[in-house]
């Protein structure tokens, strides 16, 4: 009679009798691990980029922070490592290279103000205004803020729970819209805010001969899944404004086009403002295809100086076919340039018909799906209850030439937030992304929409822009 346990014991003895040695550990392993730990940046949890509710833009704002690398453009005859990138170190709350460069050329910031109410203090500073944007910092401080933050932030300056203390600003002179970056510690909440103006918006404001920039502000604590708690409200904040100090932008109409896969990119207008340059671009692509980004887009002048995107906003979307891209610092304060060059190393193009995937929780994972001829692996999908609300998490493994900015579930208001992104995306390997979506009822199947998805076409292009 077959005895399974006896059989297994005999197999154990058989194998144990054979094994004598072990896998040798390379002596260099320890160093490699230590180096990797040293070079891995651990993100400060308290510094996040979010769009504050009251500052959501009317147009879709896509925040893309380009890396500092500049690629080689053979026709310029200059090696990439030799291309100087004008980047000025500036504390994040004060702005970016563009605002700092303008200040160094004597473009005056608007004088800041302090407002106080019931022991809560708001300090507005580093205010700079041109026809392109309004940038400033706001700091909430004072005894009452410290009391609030002691309840929310521990001694190691980490959040005690999922709440987020923040400041919201509403512009009373301009349309709703803007973005911000928030940081806080046990003493204060710090916000860098930016309002990018639509065409003509700043000019219309200046025509009214304003004496002030008018704002309202709120200090509140945001809780996930629950209502926000208002701490203090500030109405009628007035920042003294002198219209005579504003330098007006210079605009250049462009008529150049570049061929790309599935269509044409049209360079329409270049606006040069004191703090930033803006390039308006149109896309004429075949039906079913849409633009979703450039790879390493920059401007270059005839001396070989490169200008890149930096800061809260790098790209704005004005509709189906028109985009604006921003570059710093500005050439506004330099001797007149006859020409600039625009260059990129690739273009991301998305497919309208491939834009959604079906996630079925009863499926066996991993599962491969196709996006524009490339494999995306759904490594897993899970629905769980947290604090009484359902959370759907989806794990995607994507090749380097596919990107997705986010996910949505059809019929649900919220967007997925990225829980995790594998750092392999930085070094050319397929990379894991984990997305989570809260407050979602359980369903066996979801139609998940890929936001701003695209496939990379590696084409290097450069184009001369004549500034007349």
């Amino acid at each position, binding site marked *: 009679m077959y005895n399974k346990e006896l059989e297994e014991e005999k*197999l154990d003895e058989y194998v144990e009798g054979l094994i*004598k040695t072990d896998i040798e550990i390379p002596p260099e392993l320890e160093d*490699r*691990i230590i180096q990797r730990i040293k070079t*891995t940046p651990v993100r400060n949890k308290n510094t996040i980029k979010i769009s504050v509710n009251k500052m959501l833009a009317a147009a879709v704002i896509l925040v893309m922070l380009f890396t500092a690398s500049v690629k080689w453009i053979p026709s310029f005859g200059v090696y990439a490592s030799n291309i100087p990138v004008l980047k000025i170190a500036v504390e994040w709350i004060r702005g970016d290279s563009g605002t700092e460069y303008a200040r160094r050329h004597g473009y005056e910031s608007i004088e800041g103000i302090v407002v106080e109410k019931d022991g809560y203090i708001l300090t507005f500073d580093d205010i700079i205004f041109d026809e392109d944007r309004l940038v400033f910092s706001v700091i909430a401080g004072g005894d009452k803020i410290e009391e609030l933050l002691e309840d929310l932030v521990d001694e*190691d300056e980490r959040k005690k729970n999922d709440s987020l203390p923040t400041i919201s600003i509403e512009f009373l002179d301009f349309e709703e819209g803007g973005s911000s970056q928030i940081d806080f510690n046990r003493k204060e909440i710090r916000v860098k805010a930016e309002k990018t103006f639509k065409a003509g918006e700043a000019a219309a404001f200046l025509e009214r001969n304003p004496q002030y920039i008018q704002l309202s502000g709120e200090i509140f604590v945001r809780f996930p899944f629950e209502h926000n708690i208002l701490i203090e409200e500030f109405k009628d904040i007035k920042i003294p404004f002198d219209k005579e100090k504003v330098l007006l932008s210079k605009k250049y109409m462009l008529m150049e086009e570049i061929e790309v896969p599935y269509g044409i990119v049209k360079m329409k207008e270049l606006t040069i403002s004191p703090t930033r340059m803006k390039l308006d671009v149109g896309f004429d692509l075949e039906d079913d295809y849409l633009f979703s980004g450039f790879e390493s887009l920059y401007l270059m002048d005839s001396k070989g100086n490169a200008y890149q995107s930096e800061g809260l906003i790098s790209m704005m979307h004005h509709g189906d076919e028109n985009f604006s891209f921003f570059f710093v610092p500005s050439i506004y304060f330099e001797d007149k340039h006859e020409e600039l060059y625009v260059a990129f190393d690739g273009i991301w193009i998305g497919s309208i018909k491939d834009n959604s995937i079906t996630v079925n929780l009863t499926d066996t994972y991993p599962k491969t799906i196709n996006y524009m001829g490339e494999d995306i692996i759904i490594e897993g999908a899970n629905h769980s209850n947290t604090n009484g609300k359902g959370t759907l998490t989806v794990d995607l493994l994507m090749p380097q030439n596919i990107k997705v900015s986010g996910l949505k579930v059809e019929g649900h208001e919220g967007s997925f937030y990225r829980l995790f992104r594998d750092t392999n995306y930085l070094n050319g390997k397929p990379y894991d992304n984990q997305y989570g979506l809260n407050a979602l009822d359980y369903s066996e199947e979801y139609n998940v929409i890929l936001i701003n998805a695209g496939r990379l076409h590696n084409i290097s292009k450069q184009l001369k822009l004549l500034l007349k």
Partner: protein
Amino acid sequence: MEEGLIIKAQKGDKDSFSKAVLSLKDEAYRIAYCYLHNKEDSMDAVADAVEKALLNISKLKNDKYFKTWFIRIVINECKIQLRQKQKIISMADDLYKYDDLSKTNREEKIDLERSLTILDPSDRILIYMKYYMGYTLEEVAETMNLPTGTVKTRIYGNLKLLRNKLEVREG
């Protein structure tokens, strides 16, 4: 592992994190090597797993499961590498020291290792963890996120096949 190390690591203390992962480096490397059978790839997989663990350590809910959690990350990195490279795993010549082995045993050992290499890495790792690294069946199951019964069936099922192969060769 020193008490409180993981809690400190979760608060951003890189030194504590370093100590925690270095205490597991040998085990992590052996598991990676079992999958990848290549020294450089295995070191890469471990380093990638260390980076991923450092970036995600705050998500670990219970510090006592750090070892299981970290080894799972190592295994995932190995799977990613395998998917990328679709390598045919070949036996590394520098894997073993033969000092204490008789010639007969050495030939059997080589045969066993060659036999193991023809297994799917996900089956091979189970055998390595049990017989090379001293994991109990329950520990193998916990780390691999499999039922214990499944682990047992796969280990002994494969060993029976491999033993039959070796016996045929010897015969």
